[in-house]
């Protein structure tokens, strides 16, 4: 009898988690404003920063949405001049993963031209959201001073 309730409870929990995740997955979030934003250097990401912005993608081999994310970000980087796409294997850079508190792959960071993290998305982002986030990253730079 207990088992029946456990089954029903688990099914209900699964549906709630699934719906919440569907809504949240891949949404671009502002980096917390109460602490200074992390700045990543070319040395840390192991590739040159984009002239205007950089999309840093953390991936693992055990990650299906990483491939789709790679496709989206590559397209965006080709579409928007001065934007670079850098993919980092999370497993070989666990130092960065811990420093930036990355819990899932894919996680996408949007860096402005100075390497400052302006937006973060965990899960596969929508192309429109990436483009919108790039808009802010690029326009924020002049009034940074």
């Amino acid at each position, binding site marked *: 009898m*207990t*088992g*029946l309730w*456990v*089954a029903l*409870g*688990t*099914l209900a*929990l*699964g*549906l709630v*988690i*699934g719906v919440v*995740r*569907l809504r949240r997955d891949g949404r671009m979030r502002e980096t917390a404003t109460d602490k200074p934003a992390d700045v990543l250097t070319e040395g840390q990401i192991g590739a040159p920063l984009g002239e205007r912005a950089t999309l840093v993608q953390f991936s*693992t*081999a*055990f*990650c*299906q949405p990483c*491939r789709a994310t790679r496709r989206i970000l590559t397209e965006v980087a080709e579409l928007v001049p001065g934007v670079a796409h850098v993919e980092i294997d*999370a*497993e070989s850079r*666990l130092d960065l*993963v*811990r420093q930036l508190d*990355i*819990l*899932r*792959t894919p996680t996408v960071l949007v860096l402005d031209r100075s390497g400052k993290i302006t937006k973060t998305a965990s899960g596969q982002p929508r192309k429109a959201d990436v483009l919108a986030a790039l808009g802010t990253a690029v326009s924020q730079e002049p009034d940074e001073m």
Partner: protein
Amino acid sequence: MRADPRALRFGAAITTMVLVLVLVTESPWLLAAQAVVFALGTAGRSPYTMLFKTLVKSAPKETEDARPPRFAQVVGLVFAGAGLIGFFTGITPLALVATAAALLAALLNAAFGFCLGCEMYLLIRRLLPAAKMEVPQ
């Protein structure tokens, strides 16, 4: 090695139904059968996906890397194993909680396409080398 995502979703749906039955009937033997399926799945030989392949002949539009779902089958096997230990030692809460955890993962995969086992991979990797990293620093 590539896998047909439709077959994997189909397999997750059957796994979900079997695990619900395990909870409702509290049958260790059914859970043992599911554990065998998980074990075969870790080798890419899940009977559920094989059933799908005999039923559906059309080629998938897209294939995916077979390693993540296999890793997820390992996670499922671990939970099923814990559930079996619970059943056979008479620790019913362990049996139910472990089975429920496997059910949750299977349901999320079947209904939403989320692979919980795959996502746990990075978390596990984050935790495991932590002890090693602290020594040299």
